[in-house]
């Protein structure tokens, strides 16, 4: 893949190294772990950079992008499915992220089933979410809550503010990945 990717996307080894190191440092600081197989992980970083060039965002390298950010919000890395997959399988779908027990070599990483629901179901869930948001917009919060509560769909961080933060202070996910929670 290295040669193919390099020819198509013009991604240099230096760039992959730089992004890999930056990502690893950031991930370790927030209590997560990248796959300790460095070559495997750098290949995924190469895929992320290829997708950034193609689509403008870090679409999951192991999933087919719709080339539409709104539709792909759930699979922008780190995806919404990472944490449940880490809990159930010790790795995310790509195996870019692995759990503590994999780091301790008590568990092996392998190809896991796809957790992302099919498009029809995702569309239905999105419609539900929109309805919920609209409902909450019209609710009178002043009596019970002084502020609406926003939830980061990547890491679960909650905050009560007039608006969701521009960037999640915990996982650095951007504002568009928050949902109105209460």
């Amino acid at each position: 893949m290295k040669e193919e990717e390099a020819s198509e996307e013009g991604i240099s080894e230096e760039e992959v190294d730089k992004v890999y190191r930056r990502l690893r440092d950031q991930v370790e600081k927030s209590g997560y772990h990248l796959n300790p197989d460095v070559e495997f992980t750098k290949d995924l970083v190469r895929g992320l950079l290829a997708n950034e060039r193609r689509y403008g965002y870090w679409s999951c390298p192991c999933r087919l992008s719709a080339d539409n950010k709104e539709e792909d919000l759930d699979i922008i890395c780190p995806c919404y499915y990472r944490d449940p997959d880490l809990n159930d399988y010790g790795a995310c779908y790509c195996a870019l992220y692995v759990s503590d027990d994999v780091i301790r070599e008590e568990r092996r990483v392998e190809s896991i089933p796809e957790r992302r629901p099919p498009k029809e179901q995702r569309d239905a869930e999105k419609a539900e979410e929109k309805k919920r948001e609209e409902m909450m917009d019209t609710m009178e919060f002043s009596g019970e809550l002084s502020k609406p509560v926003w939830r980061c769909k990547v890491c679960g961080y909650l905050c009560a503010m007039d608006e969701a933060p521009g960037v999640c202070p915990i996982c650095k996910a951007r504002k568009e990945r928050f949902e109105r929670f209460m």
Partner: protein
Amino acid sequence: MDLFGQNKEKGDHVSGIDRGKVIMYGLSTCVWCKKTKKLLTDLGVDFEYVFVDRLDGDEEKEVIEEVRRYNPSTSFPTTVINDEKAIVGFKEKEIREALGF
């Protein structure tokens, strides 16, 4: 199937031992797809691969429909053997067995 003429970025035919019709549908950015392609190459079987992320428009739609027939979640890699058996994901043991190794 003549795969996309001369455009090897989209897919190719790899010559080898005839163990039936083997097609791997994958993504060029996916490491599990890369591992599956390597396994098939190392086994030395005759197979075709398609990188669906490198297809455009109708070509992409057509191939996705084809994958959906075998694997409703249209995830990758999907390896289809003899137009009937589909192996989803990098399942080394299953692939070896299905190909008679």
